[in-house]
């Protein structure tokens, strides 16, 4: 039997796409997954059960649930490498042990927390480590000669805190891995039994620059759990916010890449364009980083009726500035050459860890969540991706996507007219729901469980864990000086790892 049939052979639950397996069924599923290509979304624990989520198709979830036995469950990391990060986190937070896991080192708990397994029914004692954390290098890193260089978590730059431990020969990185947990602020614990508004605000602060993607997905999940859906106008307003967010974050990323590559004129131009867009949009929308504008049941903008006109004027601004910027980027001396030698990502690696988004689209993958989302049906159109998989390809994909999103704003504007979107009153009933958006760096998915009028538990899928694995593998062979460029071009975000 294939993995899908094995999961469906499990016991039905109140959620039509989630099935409860027994340990044997789960083991069979793991075995079947080895040959199966069923896309894996993530794995999480709630203290009693462990859940694994897959996507049958871009819009069709399928989840398997297993009751922990003596705090243990058969791990998935042998067949879905990215599961390793989820398994390590489940151990750090709940003490849930993945049997046959490929990596059992701590991920975020470095023995400095006020409790071990803080989310377990009975948390353990406080960590006993003093001072800066230490970590255990992987066997691969030791085999490469051990750690002789490192970067982060405080470089004086503006990136989120992460440590990169490296084995370096001359100027070349031979092997590298990351140490995370510096930005772990315990979102899973904060979401537990939280009020709806508070939970939504937290989702907007998982990863700055992707706040709309997170909050729109969170809201969809809540709405689905309540058995309601927002109207087409509200959906369109959310799309406008999503596309504006994509433009703003891509410009931010491109500015950073250009600066890192020494093309300061191009960097300034990107930053300047971004500020021009913000100067128009922030007064209407109400903020620059677009936090807290998607709320359960609707949207919340400072001047909602002005959004249609805003879209039109942003598109116009785009028509004035964007073509010149695109030409500047493509023709600026040495910029392409500089980036084309950096951070080449192997397409098979993307498949192995399941990374989508612009990184995958720059490596010849045809994946974009917007393709199947109904609200995008007449807005989104297929654009040619790239195949090279280098930092240059990724930059050019981002650049193209900015142009496309500006075009979408121009089309959405007249459709919005003066609408303010409206609000659906949600009746909070116990249940589970799923929501999904295509964020600036790829698919963002929320699974939300409501109970007794509150948010009982949240699971987030963000591209961050997969991006982290791609980052680690891509670093081997790179120049140490290119570390920041590689990181930026892959969208590695330490804050987003805390989902």
């Amino acid at each position, binding site marked *: 039997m294939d993995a899908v049939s094995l999961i469906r052979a499990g016991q039905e639950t109140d959620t039509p796409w989630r099935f409860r397996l027994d340990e044997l069924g789960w083991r069979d599923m793991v075995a079947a997954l080895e040959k199966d290509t069923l896309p894996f979304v993530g794995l999480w624990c709630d203290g009693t059960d462990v859940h694994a989520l897959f996507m049958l198709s871009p819009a069709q979830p399928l989840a398997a649930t297993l009751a922990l036995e003596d705090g243990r469950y058969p791990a998935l990391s042998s067949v879905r490498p990215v599961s390793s990060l989820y398994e390590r986190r489940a151990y750090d937070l709940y003490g849930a042990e993945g049997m046959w896991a490929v990596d059992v080192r701590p991920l975020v708990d470095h023995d400095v*927390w*006020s409790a071990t397994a803080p989310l377990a029914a009975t948390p353990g004692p406080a960590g006993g480590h003093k001072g800066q954390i230490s970590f255990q290098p992987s066997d691969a890193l030791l085999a490469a000669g051990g750690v002789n260089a490192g970067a982060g*978590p405080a470089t004086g730059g*503006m990136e989120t*805190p992460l440590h990169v431990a490296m084995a370096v020969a001359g100027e070349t990185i031979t092997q590298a891995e990351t140490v995370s947990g*510096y930005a772990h602020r*315990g979102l899973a614990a904060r979401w537990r039994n939280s009020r709806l508004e508070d939970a939504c605000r937290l989702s907007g602060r998982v990863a*700055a*620059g992707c706040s709309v993607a997170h909050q729109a997905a969170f809201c969809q999940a809540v709405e689905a759990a309540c058995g309601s859906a927002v109207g087409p106008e509200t959906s369109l307003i959310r799309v406008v916010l999503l596309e504006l967010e994509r433009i703003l974050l891509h410009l931010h990323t491109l500015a950073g890449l250009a600066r890192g590559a020494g093309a300061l004129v191009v960097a300034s131009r990107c930053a300047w364009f971004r500020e021009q867009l913000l100067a128009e949009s922030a007064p209407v929308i109400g903020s*620059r980083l677009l936090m807290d504008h998607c709320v359960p049941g609707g949207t919340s903008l400072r001047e909602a009726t002005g959004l249609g006109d805003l879209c039109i004027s942003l598109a116009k601004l785009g028509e004035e500035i964007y073509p010149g910027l695109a030409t500047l980027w493509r023709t600026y001396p040495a910029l392409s050459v500089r980036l084309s030698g950096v951070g080449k990502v192997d397409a098979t690696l993307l498949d192995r860890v399941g990374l989508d988004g612009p990184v995958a689209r720059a490596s010849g993958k045809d994946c974009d969540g917007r393709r199947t989302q109904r609200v995008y049906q007449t807005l989104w159109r297929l654009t040619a991706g790239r195949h090279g998989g280098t930092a240059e390809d990724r930059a050019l994909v981002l650049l193209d996507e900015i142009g496309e999103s500006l075009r979408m704003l121009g089309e959405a504007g007249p459709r919005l007219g003066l609408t303010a979107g409206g609000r659906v009153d949600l009746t909070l009933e116990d249940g589970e729901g799923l929501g999904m958006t295509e964020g600036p760096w790829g698919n963002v998915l929320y699974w939300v469980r409501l109970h007794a009028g509150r948010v009982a538990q949240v699971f987030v899928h963000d591209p961050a864990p997969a991006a982290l694995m791609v980052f680690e593998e891509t670093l081997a062979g790179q120049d140490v000086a290119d570390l920041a460029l590689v990181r930026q071009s892959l969208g590695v975000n330490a804050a987003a790892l805390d989902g």
Partner: protein
Amino acid sequence: MGLIRAVFDAAFRQGGPRLKPVGPRWPLLLFHVDTGGCGGCGMELEALATGPYDMEGAGFGFVQSPRSADVLLVTGTLTRTMAPVLEAAWQAMPKPKGVICVGGCAMDGGYFPENYSVLGGLDRKAKIDLQIPGCPPSPQQVLDGLCSLFGQRVPPARGAQAEGSSSTSS
């Protein structure tokens, strides 16, 4: 918790003026540490440093090493994992030195108050020379806040000598 407090007490017990005299020390050099927020404050700092705000003309610059910094500029709630890193950055800075908190997280934890992995903001844990509230504050708000240190509102033209004494506000 006791341990970290002890670390803090030792780290932040400093006598004398909080900031270096403005005249000879102009511009004021900032070392940024994200101690565990969502990254939003960092994005706005980047916009400030690289966008069309004349931050350097106003007398402020970011540096890559705490050893050349006058001020530790903190964003994000302080995680227990970042606390020793922040402490090390502080120790590496020459005296006199100061602390600026940018954003609600760094001030009092904001949306991320104390829990098993987080200590919260620096408020009541350290002497803070300037707090710039917001989640996140805009680049202009950050710049205005920084300029208030020099007792000035409008950034002076590039090259102008800033007047006034270092002030400590909160």
